[in-house]
């Protein structure tokens, strides 16, 4: 059945969840929505922002709302891969090696300041994200399902960091930034209660099983021929724009459509509208397009979208 709700008047089944998250992270409706869409699409999220804008809080709230167990890894330059994925340690009593799972064996992992770690440690995490499993000492161990990584990067502090290479960035479905709250939200934040208390009070609104079912449902959201044509037009445009070194790959195209489907589902629809594609495009394409960060903004994802007509 088609639930066409162009205006938000009727609301969708996700509205309580989004409202609950919005009650903790004030004035950040859109980043929350994108993060949830990212989760529904089964992708990982990269948040690029300054410390203290609520990245951790966002991750924490999402974990609570979906009833996921949550671990935070603070990346530092002296971190080893074993600190992320775990290691086998000799047990004297049993006289054998026993595997101690690392923090990555959680359903929602917050990888804080992932660009502070060495490339070796980074790639250990990123490989785990990609494969949904970890191989230690020849033994393959599956990661829990659902498995969701929110990594954060501090864009300003370049000293002593190892920025993620482009190929690794591709493993994140979306890259978003949270940004400062507006004045009203900030006042409420300052006058309101402690966020940690609020998180502790937050009750799960969806079970893990439900989340997995929703991820399945995302795949079945309809994308019509006209919409596919629009996505193709966008992809073709990124490839033919001279300022962009490499246009979006077919995998990026798939990611775009998957994210758009999740966005449509969040809106309570079973078909994708061009607006859904437009909504997720900056998040999906921003970190995949070299040259889209040019200072004049002529080739920003938003500008690229403006050049593509909707068929």
């Amino acid at each position, binding site marked *: 059945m088609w639930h066409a709700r*162009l205006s938000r008047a009727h609301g969708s089944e996700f509205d309580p969840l989004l409202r609950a998250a919005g009650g903790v992270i004030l004035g950040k409706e859109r980043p929350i929505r994108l993060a949830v869409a990212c989760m529904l699409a089964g992708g990982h999220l990269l948040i690029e922002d300054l410390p203290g804008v609520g990245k951790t809080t966002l991750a924490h709230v999402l974990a609570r709302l979906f009833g996921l167990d949550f671990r935070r890894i603070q990346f530092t330059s002296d971190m080893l891969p074993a600190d992320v994925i775990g290691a086998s340690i000799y047990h004297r009593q049993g006289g054998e090696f026993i595997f101690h799972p690392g923090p990555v064996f959680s359903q929602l992992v917050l990888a804080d300041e992932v660009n502070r770690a060495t490339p070796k440690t980074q790639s250990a995490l990123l490989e785990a994200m990609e494969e949904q499993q970890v191989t230690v000492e020849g033994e393959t161990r599956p990661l829990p399902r659902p498995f969701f990584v929110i990594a954060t990067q501090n864009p300003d502090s370049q000293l002593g960091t190892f920025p993620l290479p482009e190929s690794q960035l591709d493993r994140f479905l979306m890259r978003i930034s949270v940004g400062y709250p507006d004045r009203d939200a900030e006042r409420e934040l300052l006058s309101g209660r402690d966020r940690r208390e609020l998180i502790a009070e937050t009750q799960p609104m969806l079970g893990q099983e439900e989340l997995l079912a929703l991820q399945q449902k995302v795949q079945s959201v309809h994308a*019509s021929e*006209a919409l596919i044509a629009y996505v193709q037009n966008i992809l073709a445009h990124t490839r033919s724009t001279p300022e962009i070194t490499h246009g979006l790959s077919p995998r990026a195209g798939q990611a775009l459509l998957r994210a758009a489907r999740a966005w449509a589902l969040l809106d309570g629809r079973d*078909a*994708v509208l061009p607006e859904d594609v437009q909504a997720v495009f900056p998040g999906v394409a921003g970190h995949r397009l070299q040259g889209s960060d040019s200072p004049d903004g002529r080739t920003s994802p938003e500008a690229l979208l*403006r050049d593509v007509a909707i068929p």
Partner: protein
Amino acid sequence: MTIRRHRECVSNQTLAWLLGGLGLVMAPHALHVPLWLTATVIACGCLRYVLSRRGERLPGRTIRLLGVIAGTSAIYLSYGTILGLDAGVALLCLMASFKLLEMRTRRDVLVALLLGYFLIATHLIYAQTLLTVVYLLVTVWALTTLLITTQKADDGSRPLAHTRLAATMLAQALPIMVILFVLFPRVPGPLWSMPDDAYVAMTGLSDEMSPGSISEISQSDEVALRAEFAGDPPPRPQRYWRGPVLSDYDGRTWAQAGSSAAGPPEVLALTNATDYTITLEPHNKPWLLTLDIATGVDRAARFDAAHQLEQENPVRERIRYQARSVLQYQLGETLSGAARNHYTQLPDDAHPRSRELARTWRQEQTDDAELIEHGLGHFRREPFTYTLQPPRLDGDSIDEFLFGTRSGFCEHFAAAFTVLMRAAGIPARVVTGYLGGRMNPAGDYMIVRQSDAHAWVEVWLEGDGWRRVDPTGYVAPDRIEQGLAGALPQEALVPRGAFEGNGLRQHLSLRWDAINAYWNRWVLAYSPALQQHLMDRLNLGSWQRVALAIAASMALALAGLATLILRRSRQRPMDPAAAAWQRFCSRLARHGLHRRPDEGPRDFARRAAARWPTQADAIDAIAQRYGALRYGRRGGKQELRALHLAIRRLRLNS
């Protein structure tokens, strides 16, 4: 300083295609240029390819200059000139192949290709048959494909990828071609003056007849004329097509009589007239053929004293004319004394034995008509045979034939009988032309071929006029009843078309002839006169009107093409929901709210709702329906109707 831009030249692969294309263009010229020229052209092409393949330098300026001088000299030696049609075409072929050797830049490639187009046009000097034109169209297609290929930035693409585009472009040019063909003023005669020797090769009847001349023509399968009859075609024994009348005789050769002041003899029709249209193949002689015997034609031509139809100039192009004939007639009731002398004239010392025979006949028969019957019967009584390969007659041809070999073709019988009649004092003359013709069921017209060439006799009887008698019919009645193949079943030399069967091959060949006849009739026969006629009927008398008509029809054709292309370039087939949405958007645009091309239905609806708050629900509903139809899972006719209805009912106040 000039910089050689090697990068601009074509790749080896494209070069191979290019050489192949130009080879295709020049190939038919191999039929009439000297062998050395064909060899040189092929050698130049191969040399160019090998040099490019190995990445070696092309020949230098000195070598090329020497080649040009040597080639031009060779053409001069072969043709005796470097001007004129044949030599000019040969020179063009040679220079085009030399051009290959200095083809360095893309511009050179362009020159070579344009030269190729010009070479294609030169083929029409030699042949204008349908098959030729089809071949030329194929070469035009090939060259256009190559032109596109060489113009494409990525030289690596295969020319075959562009055949479709080339075909499309040529198809788009077709209306313009037709307009120019029909309306562009045609020049009377060819644009260039053809040298006289261009017509030597045309086969057909001659203005002279000696033993062997008609049997020679009979070997040819070529079409002499085609005739379309208004009513039923005449029965086969009456299909005598009158050509030159020969009455001057020197003892061996019959020739046309010199011009006389006498007007045409009067014709008395004994039956209803037969109307028909003849398409006459060029034969380089002034006479026109008609069914025996014509009373009138719609062409500037006149009947001479022997009732032979002639026009002023030789027939050098295919012509079409309408004629009316009567098949039972009385021709030339009176004969002047001078004419009587002319038609009984025989060289004094020729044919003593024949004259003797005629004399004995004359002694036995006093009545002319009976003498003629008796004379014709002679060919049946005596063992005469009808053959395409008669023995040579070296001495007194008539005597030798009548009393010695006794085998001959129609000209032998006609000549001998005329001599006999003249010797008996009866005015007689030889008439040449064609006997027979086969109806083509595929086109409802009659084909008369050179193999139908025939000679017969006309004798003059007091009170009866000229009467046609055919001595061949007394030797080989089948010749008249069934045609040449029926009369000569064993002879292998009878040409293919003369056999009349019902096999598939005959069927196809007749069908092909019918197609060619249409081509001749509707395309090649479109002469200045016919164009003038058409212009008068279209009320395009003055050249200003013609120019206007060309301009107008061109504009129309181009506009039509433009619409077609524009429509095709749009989303096709346009989704009905998208069309309705577009209408909705343009309606809002007229009220000042323009949808950005990148604006989705929901965003636009939100903007529109803000602009027309009273209509917000209606606008929202339209956007919802459109979204459901275009992006949703199902879109039925009902929803589409609802969308149309919602858009129609929307009331906007600006």
